[in-house]
C-alpha cells in the first residue's frame, strides 16, 4: 500500500488515479502515524513551498517523513514535494526538510522567449541510472509546471537533468528518497512507467 501524503496541496487525486490505473493500491492520508508505518510514501504537491512546509509542520508530517526516511521507507517526492526535500527554498525563504542538502532558486531567464513558469513537456536526460528510471528512454519528455527548480549541493544526488534557459536537476535522490520536479502522473506512458517502478522499488538507490 502506498500512502499519499495529504497536506492540502493539489494533485493528490491525480497521483491516486494514475496508481489506480496501474492496479497499485494507494490511500490519501494526512495522518503522521500512518505515514510512519507506511510501506511506501508518495509526497506530491502543487503550490507554494512555504505554505506547504507550514501545513507539513502543523500536521506533524515533517517529523513523520524524516522518521520514515531514516527507517528506509521508499519515498517519492513530486514537484513541490521534490523541492521541500531540499534544505531550503527561495520561495518564501523557506527552511525545508533537508533530506538532500541544497536550495531551490527561482528561474531568472535572460532569453525573453522563455516564460515563467516553465510549463509543458521537456526532455529529461538521465545522468545516473536509478531503479525508478528503468525503461525510461533517454531524453523522454515529461510534463513540468514550476517557477523554482531543485539545485542540490552534491552533484551525486542528481539523477536527471533538463534544460530550460539553464540546465537544472529534474530528478534527484538520496538513499531511499527519489524526487522529480516533473509530474509523472501527467506524463503519459513514460510517467506511468516511473510510478510502476516506484511501486516495485525496495528503496535501494541502485
Amino acid at each position, binding site marked *: 500500500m502506498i500512502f499519499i501524503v495529504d497536506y492540502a496541496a*493539489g494533485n493528490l*487525486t*491525480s497521483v491516486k*488515479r*494514475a496508481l*489506480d*490505473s496501474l492496479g497499485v493500491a494507494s490511500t490519501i492520508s494526512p495522518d503522521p502515524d500512518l505515514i510512519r508505518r507506511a510501506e511506501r510514501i508518495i509526497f506530491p504537491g*502543487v*503550490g507554494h513551498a512555504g505554505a506547504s512546509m507550514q501545513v507539513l509542520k502543523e500536521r506533524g508530517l515533517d517529523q513523520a517523513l524524516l522518521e520514515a526516511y531514516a527507517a528506509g521507507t521508499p519515498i517519492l517526492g513530486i514537484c513541490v514535494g521534490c523541492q521541500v526535500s531540499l534544505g531550503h527554498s527561495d520561495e518564501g525563504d523557506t527552511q525545508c526538510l533537508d533530506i538532500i542538502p541544497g536550495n531551490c532558486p527561482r528561474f531568472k531567464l535572460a532569453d525573453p522567449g*522563455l*516564460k*515563467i*513558469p*516553465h*510549463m*509543458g*513537456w*521537456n*526532455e529529461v536526460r538521465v545522468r545516473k541510472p536509478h531503479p525508478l528510471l528503468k525503461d525510461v*528512454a533517454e*531524453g*523522454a*519528455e515529461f*510534463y513540468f*509546471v514550476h517557477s523554482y527548480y531543485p539545485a542540490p549541493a552534491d552533484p551525486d544526488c542528481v539523477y536527471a537533468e533538463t*534544460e*530550460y534557459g539553464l540546465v537544472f536537476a529534474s530528478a534527484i535522490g538520496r538513499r531511499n528518497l527519489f524526487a522529480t520536479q516533473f509530474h509523472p*502522473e*501527467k*506524463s*503519459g*506512458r*513514460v*510517467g*506511468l512507467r516511473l510510478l510502476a517502478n516506484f511501486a516495485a522499488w525496495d528503496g535501494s538507490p541502485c
Partner: protein
Amino acid sequence: MLTKRLISCLDVRDGKLAKSVKFVDTRDIGDPVSQARKYYEEGLDELVMYDITASSDRRDIMIDVVAAVAAQVFIPFSVGGGLRSVEDCRRVLLAGAEKINVNSAAVRNPALISEASQAFGAQCVVLSMDVKAVAPGNKIPSGYEIVIDGGRTPMGIDAIQWAQLGEELGAGELVINSIDADGTKAGYELQLTRMIVDKVGIPVIASGGGGEPEHLYQVLTEGGADAALVASMLHYGTHTIAGIKQYLHERGVKMRMNY
C-alpha cells in the same frame, strides 16, 4: 528544450461528442471518453473538453464525463464551458481536470479570472478568447474584437488589450480562437496570434483554422504560438496525431516524440 504542444479540443453536449463548424450546426460524432482515451494513447500532448450543453440542469453530466476521462487520460487536461464562478471551477478541478478554461463568463465578469487564479494558482487558469477581425478604430485599435456567446455578441473590446488584462488578472495561459478562421481549415490567424504573443509573457495556444500540418507549422513558427489546437483534422480522421507530429518534427519544430 521545451516542446511545442499539440492540443485537441472535444466539444461535449449532453455528455456526447459534438464538433462545431463555424459555431452552428453541430453534429454528434461519438463518445467523448473513448475519444479522449484514443487521443491520449496516440500521443496527444494536452486535452481540452468544452461543455456546450445549453441547459444548465444537464451540466452535471459533464462532471461525470470529466471524472471518467481523468481516470484514464494521464496528460494535462483542461475543461471549459459554462464555468461562471469559482465554485463551478472547483467542481471540475475536483472531478479531475488540471486546468479550467474561462471565456464568455470572464468577459462579463473579469474578476472571475483573478478569483480563480487566487484560489487555484495561475497555472490552472486558461483564458480562452473568441476573436473577430473588424475595421480598426478608436475602441478596437488592433482591428481584432472580442466576441462572446459562440461568436454572436461583439463586445467592443480590443483583443490585444483583453489578452494583456487577462494576464494581469492572473490567467496562466491564453487560447486565441479566431472566429473567422474557425472551421475553415484554411490556416490559423497568424497575424492575430503573433500580435498577442508579442504582448504577453504567458503561453499562447492558437485555435481555429487548422486543416493541414503546414498550418500548425506556420502558427508555431511565424505565429510564435506555444501550442496549436486542432479539432476537425483529427476528429474526422483526415490526419493523425503521429502524422502531424512527425511532420512538425521533420521541419525542425521541437515536439514530444516519445509517447
